[in-house]
């Protein structure tokens, strides 16, 4: 290997032990290389990664390869070679056969040469293989930690080697009921952050850099809880039925498990975390998955014949997304409880010792993997007491990781004593820090992937930032040792505003920035600093104030959080209203107590949850223990101290008046539907068609016998070669003559962008330009402004809205002073909404089985399958094709497809108003909200005008991620084919061009096709008739969209629901409208559909490209 390494600087970088060489960035190594040289380097790397036995060298080579194909090579490809992506390779990729996928792509590269399309495919395949290799290694390490291995060997329930502690098996003498083992556990907060260095992959490659300072805390929600206490409580007891009963009192979920298979079915209810704990604790070891046994057989061995276990979790209603690792510490608490009960932890009660805590942490990692989630290695910190340093450790000869990775999976914990951090300092920290939950509960997964990738590539700026973050860590520890909280605040702020945002700009958001600014403005020098908790800001956060003002600031912040949230809730995905916490440092970690005698009772919420269910059954059907539980509740209620509990229980049993349970009602929804042009007849027709199978996902597709092939060069104009001077001039004249306007489609809520959170995508401030977060809408207006100022002509800008977005956009335009835009802006409000339907199981099956999707990692795939079974059950029980009304009205209605946006401009008078205000108006450029590169370019406009087309669609060369149809020759005629209509997958891969949706519209020509002229636009009857006639000529598609239903404390469920749409691209099927197609460069037509794209878009120059098109006007 060293011989090979000596020939290539990239390989030298990967294999060198010298940090100076090892930490060289990929950019510096690739600078100045031609495409041929890059491909040579890539070939060497590919050979290397096939033979390298060192895991991290292999992974780094894979990420180098991914980066070369994603970022380096495309910029060197000077010709416009239009390669296609082999479908077989794509198929391998979707099915996680990454090696085969790469081989397939490389063989095409060998044969046809490299192309932008192929490069994107190779980048994705190497990227996925890199992460898969890392995940495999973590999984392997988790399994091979000593103390975990036996659980994977056990194959038969009857051979279970654990026994429940005899104390728990013996009924309490005083009450006759089995005693309860209660474990209380703290949560953790991360003081130093250290640039996400607790990601397993980082700790295992760079243990020296993996260091955090982590504090265990007790919590109370300010204004709600009377006392601050360990937020996590778990309860375990033996029961007199051979089942495992799992109860989450916070989620109000109960399940009784009677087979081993059910324990591994994580998606069927909300108790996946409790199941993962039971498995990771070894009570139902992972080796038993698929054994087909009943749980009674296992319980007979472990607990005794006819006996079972009951496990209850309670997190004191701490909202999800607190960034305090509540779920990992809950998992730790459950595992600790179960391990005490089965003798795997020596002490049944009291605190844990260090070896026990390490064991619990290792099992919690295992549990997270089993449950398909994942956190960092510091997350189980709440199991430890007080303030501790958690540091990565190099792998030694006795560790399973030795020779595979530089670091161990498990870090070391050093609990800092009173000499290191004095009690006074601890008190000062409590007196200064205000902990809050901002209300956002976002998925940090993409952020953690971005961090890992940046680390492996050693981007120069990012590496420098990481070095700075490490030095800040040292200073943070010193500041705490010195008792200097003010300095601590400066350091955590510097960390957040400096290295963290340098590595991941999306660690912050507009909401957080505004809060920090507001705190600075309000308290000046007495605001000591900001502190980001966890993976990203917006959820759990810390604000450090001078103790003199802390109490006041805590109240002020509580109000300010809500105020800013109210302003931004239509543009950012909030899951709940913000809360402020009271907190104290917890000095015990996880502690257990055996409840017997008068203390023997489950928490009140447990009793409130189970009692109604018990009462519904005849007494003879209840087990003796439940009868004893019920009589204990009766006894308690007779005590003076039990009166309040009794009242709560009674309230639970009796109906509550509607005013107290204000849920969105059907009447709200019907009001919305009535006011927004809901067409009942059409809706019922669609429902009937859906049920009968006349429409549906399968029926969206074009017949298989229609010939669909790729277009030829004569069918398109390739704008990447530039436009002639004449076209440019024509375009410039048209702009200067006030003949062009812009239509931005902003009626949608960006289902993919926020995974169905229902916020207005147009207003989402997703990226910082010129020092401030900007929304999609603001960016589009800034592009308009730049061109308008250049030609000194106003360009009218239409923003199409729908019931879901209109009010929010109007408010945002008003609040921001139209983002400082001086040109005319029109809001074109949609005139129709649809009501979503419960999906047909047939369509769900079609989507899951017939439509292409990425197979997930082994454990996540199991979660997906289990979740899908639950969704199909939901659809059946809720009634297929029934109205979807069990959510907020905004989540139940849907816009009816972007085809309607232009007709809406005719119906609502927007176009008429525009023409009145600017009679010269002749052409419109219509574009999607997320096509950030689209602007009024004179070349495109001039070409469109010169061509005489009614509609000119901009298409872009397809990359791997551009899925969903494209430009095709259908029965000899070029047209756009929606992805929904493609008869099969393979055809799409034969199409080189993808529809960017940007369309140049010749107003008069299109009006003519509608059977209208400009003078008809004020005749609403004629316009309505024209639109209806046109609509009938176009296909209707059924789609399944994800919507979130929020409940409890920031909990969210995602449901796929059915809706119908008509799509703009189908205008190309009309033979009486002349449609032309212009090939635009990728940058101009690229669409941002998911936040996970942001990093690549920013790094490959996409954001700089957009920035250059804009004129900011702050």
């Amino acid at each position, binding site marked *: 290997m060293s011989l090979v390494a000596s020939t290539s600087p990239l390989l030298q970088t990967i294999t060198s032990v010298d940090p100076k060489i090892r930490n060289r960035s990929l950019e510096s190594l690739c600078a100045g290389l031609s495409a041929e040289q890059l491909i040579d380097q890539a070939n060497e790397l590919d050979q290397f990664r096939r033979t390298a036995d060192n895991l991290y060298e292999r992974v780094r080579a894979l990420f180098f390869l991914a980066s070369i194909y994603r970022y380096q090579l495309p910029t060197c490809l000077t010709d416009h070679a239009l390669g296609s992506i082999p479908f077989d390779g794509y198929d391998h990729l979707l099915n996680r056969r990454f090696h085969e996928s790469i081989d397939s792509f490389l063989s095409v590269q060998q044969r046809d040469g490299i192309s932008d399309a192929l490069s994107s495919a190779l980048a994705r395949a190497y990227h996925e293989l890199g992460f898969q290799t890392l995940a495999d290694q973590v999984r392997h390490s988790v399994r091979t930690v*000593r*103390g*975990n*291995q*036996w*659980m994977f*060997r*056990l194959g038969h329930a009857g*051979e*279970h*080697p*654990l*026994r429940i502690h005899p104390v728990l098996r013996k009924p309490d003498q005083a009450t006759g009921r089995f005693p309860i083992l209660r474990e209380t556990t703290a949560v953790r907060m991360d003081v130093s952050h250290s640039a996400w260095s607790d990601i397993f992959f980082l700790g295992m490659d760079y243990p020296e850099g993996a260091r955090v300072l982590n504090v265990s805390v007790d919590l109370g929600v300010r204004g709600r809880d009377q006392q601050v206490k360990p937020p996590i409580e778990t309860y375990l007891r033996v029961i007199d039925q051979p089942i495992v009963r799992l109860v989450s009192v916070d989620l109000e979920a109960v399940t009784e498990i009677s087979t081993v298979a059910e324990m591994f079915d994580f998606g069927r209810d909300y108790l996946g975390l409790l199941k993962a704990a039971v498995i990771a604790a*070894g009570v139902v070891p992972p080796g038993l998955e698929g054994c087909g046994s009943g749980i009674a057989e296992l319980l007979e061995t472990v607990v005794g014949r006819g006996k079972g276990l009951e496990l209850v979790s309670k997190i004191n209603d701490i909202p999800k997304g607190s960034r305090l690792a509540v779920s990992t510490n809950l998992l730790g608490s459950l595992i600790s409880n179960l*391990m005490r009960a*089965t*003798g*795997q932890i020596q002490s049944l009660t009291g605190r844990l010792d260090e070896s026990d805590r390490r*064991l619990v942490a290792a099992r919690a990692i295992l549990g997270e993997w089993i449950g398909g989630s994942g956190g960092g290695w510091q997350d189980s910190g709440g199991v430890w007491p007080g303030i501790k340093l958690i540091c990565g450790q190099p792998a030694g000869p006795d560790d399973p990781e030795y020779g595979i990775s530089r670091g161990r999976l498990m870090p070391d914990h050093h609990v800092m004593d009173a000499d290191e951090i004095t009690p006074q300092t601890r008190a000062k920290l409590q007196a200064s820090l205000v902990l809050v939950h901002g209300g956002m509960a976002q998925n940090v997964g993409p952020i953690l992937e971005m961090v890992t990738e940046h680390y492996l590539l050693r981007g120069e700026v990012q590496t420098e930032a990481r070095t700075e973050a490490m030095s800040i860590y040292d200073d943070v520890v010193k500041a705490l040792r010195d008792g200097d909280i003010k300095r601590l605040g400066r350091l955590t702020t510097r960390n957040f505003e400096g290295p963290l945002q340098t590595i991941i700009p999306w660690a912050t958001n507009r909401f957080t920035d505004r809060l920090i600014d507001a705190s600075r403005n309000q308290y000046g020098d007495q605001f000591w600093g900001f502190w980001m908790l966890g993976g990203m800001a917006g959820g759990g956060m810390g604000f450090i104030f001078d103790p003199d003002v802390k109490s006041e600031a805590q109240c002020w912040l509580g109000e300010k959080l809500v105020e800013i949230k109210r302003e931004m809730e239509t543009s950012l995905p909030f899951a709940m209203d913000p809360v402020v916490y009271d907190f104290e440092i917890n000095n015990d970690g996880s502690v257990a107590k055996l409840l017997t005698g008068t203390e023997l009772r489950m928490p009140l919420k447990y009793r409130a949850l189970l009692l109604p269910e018990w009462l519904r059954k005849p007494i003879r059907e209840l087990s003796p223990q439940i009868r004893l539980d019920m009589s204990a509740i009766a006894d308690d209620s007779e005590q003076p101290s039990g009166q309040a509990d009794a009242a709560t229980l009674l309230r639970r049993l009796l109906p509550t008046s509607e005013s107290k349970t204000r849920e969105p009602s059907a009447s709200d929804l019907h009001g919305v539907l009535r006011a927004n042009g809901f067409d009942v007849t059409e809706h019922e027709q669609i429902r009937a068609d859906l049920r009968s199978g006349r429409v549906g996902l399968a029926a969206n597709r074009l017949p298989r016998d229609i010939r669909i092939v790729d277009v030829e060069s004569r069918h398109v104009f390739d704008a990447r070669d530039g436009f002639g001077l004449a076209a440019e001039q024509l375009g410039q004249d048209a702009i200067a003559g006030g003949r062009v306007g812009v239509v931005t489609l902003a009626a949608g809520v960006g289902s993919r962008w926020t995974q169905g959170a229902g916020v207005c995508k147009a207003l989402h401030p997703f990226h910082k330009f010129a020092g401030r977060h900007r929304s999609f809408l603001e960016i589009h207006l800034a592009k308009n402004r730049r061109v308008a100022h250049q030609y000194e002509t106003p360009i009218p800008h239409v923003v199409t809205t729908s019931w879901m977005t209109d009010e929010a956009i109007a408010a945002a335009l008003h609040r921001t002073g139209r983002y400082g835009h001086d040109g005319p802006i029109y809001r074109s409000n949609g005139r129709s909404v649809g009501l979503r339907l419960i999906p047909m199981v047939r369509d769900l099956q079609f989507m899951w089985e017939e439509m292409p999707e990425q197979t997930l990692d082994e454990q996540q795939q199991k979660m997906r399958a289990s979740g899908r079974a639950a969704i199909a059950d939901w659809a059946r029980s809720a009634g297929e094709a029934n109205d979807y009304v069990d959510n907020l009205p905004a989540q139940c209605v849907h816009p009816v497809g972007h085809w309607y946006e232009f007709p809406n401009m005719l119906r609502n008078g927007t176009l008429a108003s525009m023409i009145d205000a600017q009679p010269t108006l002749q052409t419109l450029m219509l574009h999607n909200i997320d096509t950030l590169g689209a602007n009024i370019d004179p070349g495109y406009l001039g070409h469109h005008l010169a061509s005489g087309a009614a509609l000119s669609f901009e298409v872009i060369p397809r990359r791997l991620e551009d899925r969903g149809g494209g430009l095709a020759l259908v029965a000899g005629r070029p047209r756009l084919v929606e992805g929904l209509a493609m008869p099969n997958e393979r055809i799409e891969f034969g199409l080189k061009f993808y529809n960017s949706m940007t369309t140049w519209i010749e107003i008069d020509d299109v009006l003519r096709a509608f059977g209208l002229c400009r003078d008809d636009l004020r005749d609403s009857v004629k316009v309505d008739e024209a639109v209806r006639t046109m609509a009938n000529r176009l296909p209707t598609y059924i789609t399944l969209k994800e919507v979130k239903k929020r409940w409890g404390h920031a909990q969210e469920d995602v449901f796929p629901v059915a809706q119908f749409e008509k799509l703009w691209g189908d205008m190309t099927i009309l033979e009486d409208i002349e449609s032309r197609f212009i090939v635009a460069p990728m940058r101009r037509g690229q669409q941002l559909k998911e936040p996970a794209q942001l990093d690549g878009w920013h790094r490959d120059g996409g954001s700089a490209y957009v920035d250059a098109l804009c004129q900011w006007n702050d």
Partner: protein
Amino acid sequence: MRVCKAVITAASPNQNTLPLQRLVDGHGDEKTALQLIIEETLSAGIEEIAVVIRPGDEANYRHAAGSAISGVTFIAQDQPLGYADALLRAEPFVGDDAFLHLVGDHLYLSSINKTCASQLVEMACRHECPVSAVQSTREHRLPYFGIVGGTSVPQHDGLYEVRRVVEKPTPTYAEQQLITPGLRSGHYLGYFGMHVLTRTVLDALHEVVADESLERPSLSDAAAKLPARGRYLAHQLHGRRYNIGVQYGTLIAQLAIGLSGRDREMLLAELVELLASREPDRGLISNEDELIPGAML
């Protein structure tokens, strides 16, 4: 070191009748389990035997000991204070001498010409230190045995230097602390129910009995102290132990003894018959061919 005395413990409250059960030995003779254990003991050259029993059991035990009664002393454990205490009841009997110890609920079957007890005593005499017989035990049997962890003694097959002893460990603990190199994964060295013990062990037994934190201390608790006090070995014998105190334990022990003795063929035939006539669903014996004990096919 010479081992002339043996101590058999049979005072456990739920298991005091186990040695009284009757079995058929390898020669086809009916004997009690106690007789078989005494025979095993005598085969190792033991001259004096003490059996620790519950008060009131002596008459039954004398009867069960049969012809071997001459060298046997019975010692009563007045209170059921556990295994360690039971062994200490025999302290006046053994004095400072090394002694062989067997538990009363195990039977042994050697796979070579030398009995298990002989193999163990020979090893103890050669190394002049306490030695416990052990057997490779799969992890699902951990809840039933004391488990030792150690390293193998070079040049001595099946001999281990004991580093740690834990009574009925969890697999989690065993995997972390009790792995012995050379065994298959998931296998540990489990006590065989047969030991050669010395004065050091008795001292350790006194300590654990005096330790109030231990509830009913066992031999394992005392043995755990031995590695720190001198050499303590574990020997994997050529043979197997059969615990007659567990469900079907006596049946399996009887089958093992029978199949290694004179009546092997007959037993095999009966077993085949049993298997062949078993109804597939309900596991009942078919009425057509009534089983006739001792009948040959």
